[in-house]
């Protein structure tokens, strides 16, 4: 497809037209893919969440509930977009669009098939980290401009959690960079196809990236910012109608972007096993992306919500030291020059060992006391001091 257009244009138009047209086609293709994936993600999430909870999800609108995302979209668009009186008008109006933009920008640098990347830059991972960091500011814009103390609280919590979890997010990728020796995403995908997926070579990094990503995306168990039973709806309380649709879509786009990044960095991108090349690589990529999305839904169905102080303690006291240890171990392995299979074995064993040992060292809850000793201590005190 690219060659056809290039052959039509190259002889006859200046260079910038060729670049512009191909980029435009790429943007349109990615946009279509993202919007379609959003609708599919809404359907998958509702049905799959239902099956995890031993109920069927929506199955009345259309065959098997396939028109449910459309019904959701129509419902939300049909609602009245109320703008409260004393909001900071331009910030309020700009926030939903600003939240959507970084989510969809992440899709630009991902390799979908060999040679098929919209933005083939050499610093792909840096781009992803930067774009993710930009996504913090619109949340604050939304919370501040709503003129609502609960929205502001929700926004402050969201910022605290997002900023805290970006550190283990990016640090866990450094193990991959040490092994792959490049920031270029296509090269990393090819490294994985040749040497084995980073899912196996860096299991600790994968788990930490998944947990930190789940926190960045405001998904349960870390959705204290917008949990429906907490602070009403957090930073998007005052939004309704189409602006809320943008927040909703931005959240799903963000989840899908993270799934795509996990697939690219940990699960071999568009690669498949030997001899399974009959199925086009873009389809393998999409299948893996939806699989990781299903794992996000699985996590949401299982785990209860964490409190904000538990979340912060978890990030700073537990995840960051583990990522630093992971970097050290990976660097030693590369320095010694091990092949893939020893790396896989050593890393898996060390991941389990480190997690067990580090939980002994750090206790997120305070001093751990033997329960019978605690009860004896409490019972032996005279009543006046029982409050201690």
């Amino acid at each position, binding site marked *: 497809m690219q060659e056809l257009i290039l052959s039509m244009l190259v002889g006859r138009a200046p260079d910038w037209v060729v670049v512009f047209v191909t980029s435009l086609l790429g943007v349109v293709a990615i946009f279509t893919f993202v919007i379609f994936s959003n609708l599919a993600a809404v359907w998958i999430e509702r049905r*799959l969440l*239902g*099956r*995890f*909870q*031993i*109920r*069927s999800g929506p*199955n009345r609108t259309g065959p098997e509930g396939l028109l449910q995302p459309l019904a959701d979209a129509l419902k939300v668009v049909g609602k009245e977009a109320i703008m409260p009186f004393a909001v900071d008008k331009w910030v309020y109006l700009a926030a939903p669009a600003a939240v959507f933009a970084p989510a969809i920008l992440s899709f630009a640098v991902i390799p979908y098939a060999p040679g098929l990347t919209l933005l083939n830059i050499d610093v792909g991972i840096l781009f992803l980290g930067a774009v993710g960091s930009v996504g913090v500011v619109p949340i604050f814009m939304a919370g501040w401009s709503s003129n609502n103390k609960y929205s502001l609280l929700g926004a402050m919590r969201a910022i605290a959690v997002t900023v805290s979890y970006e550190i283990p997010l990016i640090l866990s990728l450094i193990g991959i960079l040490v092994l792959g020796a490049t920031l270029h995403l296509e090269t990393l995908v090819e490294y994985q196809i040749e040497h084995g997926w980073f899912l196996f070579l860096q299991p600790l990094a994968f788990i930490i990236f998944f947990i930190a990503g789940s926190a960045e995306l405001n998904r349960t168990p870390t959705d204290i910012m917008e949990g429906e039973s907490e602070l009403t709806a957090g930073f998007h309380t005052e939004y309704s109608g189409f602006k809320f649709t943008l927040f909703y879509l931005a959240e799903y786009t963000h989840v899908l972007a993270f799934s795509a990044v996990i697939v690219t960095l940990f699960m071999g991108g568009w690669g498949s096993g030997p001899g399974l090349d009959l199925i086009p690589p873009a389809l393998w990529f999409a299948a893996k992306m939806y699989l990781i999305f299903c794992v996000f839904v*699985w*996590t949401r*169905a*299982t*785990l209860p919500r964490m409190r904000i102080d538990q979340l912060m303690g978890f990030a700073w006291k537990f995840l960051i030291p583990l990522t630093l240890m992971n970097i050290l171990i990976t660097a030693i392995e590369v320095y010694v020059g091990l092949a893939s299979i020893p790396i896989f074995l050593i890393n898996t064993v060390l991941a*389990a060992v480190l*997690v*067990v040992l580090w*939980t002994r060292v750090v206790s997120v809850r305070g001093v751990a006391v033997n329960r019978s000793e605690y009860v004896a201590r409490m019972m032996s005190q005279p009543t006046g001091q029982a409050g201690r």
Partner: protein
Amino acid sequence: MYGLGIAKGMLVVLKHIFRKPITQQYPEEHVVLAPRFRGYDFAWVESRCTGCATCAKACPQGCIDIVTHPKEDGRYAIDKFDIDTGLCMICGLCVEVCPYDALFMGRGFDLSSYNRWDLVVHKDDIGNRPQLSAYFRPPFGGQSANREDVDGLYQASTGQPKPEEAKP
């Protein structure tokens, strides 16, 4: 080990996909109701009703609307017997106080409609779809006379044979 509980929990939830969902697909599959379930569709036995309007007086909401006129033989002829199921709270006081066992509660609950007028049940429609509830009129023992029509209704709705007569 940290995270082992989470892993076990997630495996349990994963197994839930392979279980049959417990959702009852409503219009196709009906809920199996207990025999003493109280519902909206009332069954009114016209041959027993004397128009005393005790049920109308007992109703806390005032749902029952009765209009009668005297006949030649001294009994009342009932012109109108409406129950407004939109107001009804299914307390069953009307059924409980009827001295002649002329009013019964059904077990249906799907009388929904698109406007409030259709929720008023008139005397021609009452008892059209009776699935009698055994709450106030248990089918065993202690019944008043002239049970034939009620037994017929009960049999028709539940498909069960006529219950045994109680010893006086």
